[in-house]
């Protein structure tokens, strides 16, 4: 009996749930070009719509405290999943439920304005991510310490070097108290010491039991850091589980397609 209650107590709860999620994009040439078309399309049910199905009914959970990797070829649906997690998109069908606060490192510094100082951008980015000014103030010193840009914090960011820009942006996301961190290929940027710092920070966040979702083409990094890896292809899950096996299957898939293309050529 005691063992059972214990296992119940530590059973991790899902932070992110996808249930039979479909995501469909309407292709761009369907866009209304003139005023007349605009009104027509607003009142008419979708006509000659050409759709592209990016996700074809996928279901999975991301558990609290785990680091979850997503791999797959270009166009497999990886970024669409991240955008659904970040609530940028809504699923065409199915359910996405997110339990907790999401911090998205999807494009570092997307909210920065070049004319504003580092300090102003920190507060603006914080507000865009949904943090109050009070929360930002209490975290500001941590952000500054991690970014390590010294007195440049009061200089307009257009004068920053790329490294400084990235460090500041990463510092904001990785310092703010979130439950879920979404990362899209960011660790491929910056110099070696910055990358090392990012990895250290990720390890720290893992220990703090943040839920981390990473999309990357860097397979060795994925293997090192992830608890579970999901392999996607053409909007479907091919494999979900142990990182080494997911990566092996992915390399297999790549080899197969390469062989196919060589034979057709």
């Amino acid at each position, binding site marked *: 009996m005691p063992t059972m209650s214990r296992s119940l107590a530590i059973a991790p709860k899902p932070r992110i749930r996808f249930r039979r999620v479909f995501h469909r*994009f*309407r292709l761009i040439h369907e*866009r*209304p070009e003139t*005023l007349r078309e*605009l009104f027509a399309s607003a009142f008419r049910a979708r006509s000659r719509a050409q759709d592209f199905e990016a996700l074809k009914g996928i279901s999975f959970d991301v558990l609290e405290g785990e680091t979850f990797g997503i791999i797959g070829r270009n166009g497999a649906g990886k970024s669409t999943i991240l*955008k659904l997690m*970040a*609530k*940028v*998109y*809504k699923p065409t069908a199915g359910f996405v439920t997110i339990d907790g606060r*999401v911090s*998205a490192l*999807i*494009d570092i510094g*997307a*909210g920065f*304005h070049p*004319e*504003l100082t580092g300090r*102003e951008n920190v*507060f*603006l980015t914080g*507000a*865009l*991510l*949904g943090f*109050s*000014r009070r929360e930002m103030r209490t975290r500001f010193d941590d952000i500054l310490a991690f970014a390590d840009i010294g007195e440049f914090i009061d200089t307009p960011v257009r004068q920053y070097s790329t490294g400084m820009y990235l460090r500041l942006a990463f510092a904001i996301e990785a310092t703010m108290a979130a439950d879920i961190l979404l990362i899209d290929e960011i660790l491929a940027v910056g110099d070696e010491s910055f990358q090392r710092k990012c990895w250290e920070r990720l390890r720290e966040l893992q220990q703090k039991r943040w839920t981390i979702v990473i999309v990357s083409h860097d397979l060795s990094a994925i293997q090192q850091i992830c608890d579970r890896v999901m392999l996607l292809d053409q909007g479907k899950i091919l494999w979900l589980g142990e990182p080494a096996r997911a990566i092996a299957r992915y390399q297999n898939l790549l080899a197969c397609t390469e062989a196919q293309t060589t034979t057709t050529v």
Partner: protein
Amino acid sequence: MLALSRNLIRHRELIWLLALKELKVRYKRSVLGFFWALLHPLLMMIVLTVVFSTVIRFPIDHYAVFLISALFPWIFFSQSLAYAVESVVLNGPLLKKVYVPRLVFPVAAVTANLINFLLSLGPLALLLFLLQFPFHTTWLYLPVPLLALVLFTLGFGFFFAAVNVFFRDMAHILQILLTVWFYFSPILYSIHLVPPAYRFWFRLNPMLYLLEGFRLTIYDGNAPPVWLVAISLLIGLAALMSGFFIFRHYDDAYAYYV
């Protein structure tokens, strides 16, 4: 309506920061900075006053004051729309990456211009003093027409920001629309100068009622009558509700089209 006010309260800090950013960015690298916000309407006032009180000679006393009492609010309206129409599109890269409540962008554009307008009231008062124009206590009523105009501006801001995402020509159409609207609104003239035969058509212009409140309080020194307050607030609310409805309707689609 409830949804709108709830959102505005929840995101007030973000809206405020975005509005301040807008103003900072606008004036940051210019030497005269904020004075440009004043210089532009002042220059317009001088030119228009010279044209319409010495060249064309409208039978209006203190033409300069008569003019600015409606011109300043109009500039607030047109500048707000010019910023709001692009607000969602310009923040497209951001909208595609993180979830940000979209409605904050048009609201921030209007807020930034409202701050500009409020700051220009000080120099406006100084100008009246220099022109030796009597100061009316009815200035105290100003918040009423201002509220109606802000509601109206927000509604149109929402509408143009939404449409411009799908139909980029809207920003250009807006420019033309604003020019035409300017001349058909009683800013340079008053409704009494319009031949009676055409007056009916001029009265269909909602801007007439919105600007009349400003002119009454600043120029005529009269409190706006109850019917005028009621009608301008109604116009403002109706514009806001329909604009917000349209903006909300396309809320999920912006991330794909910006």
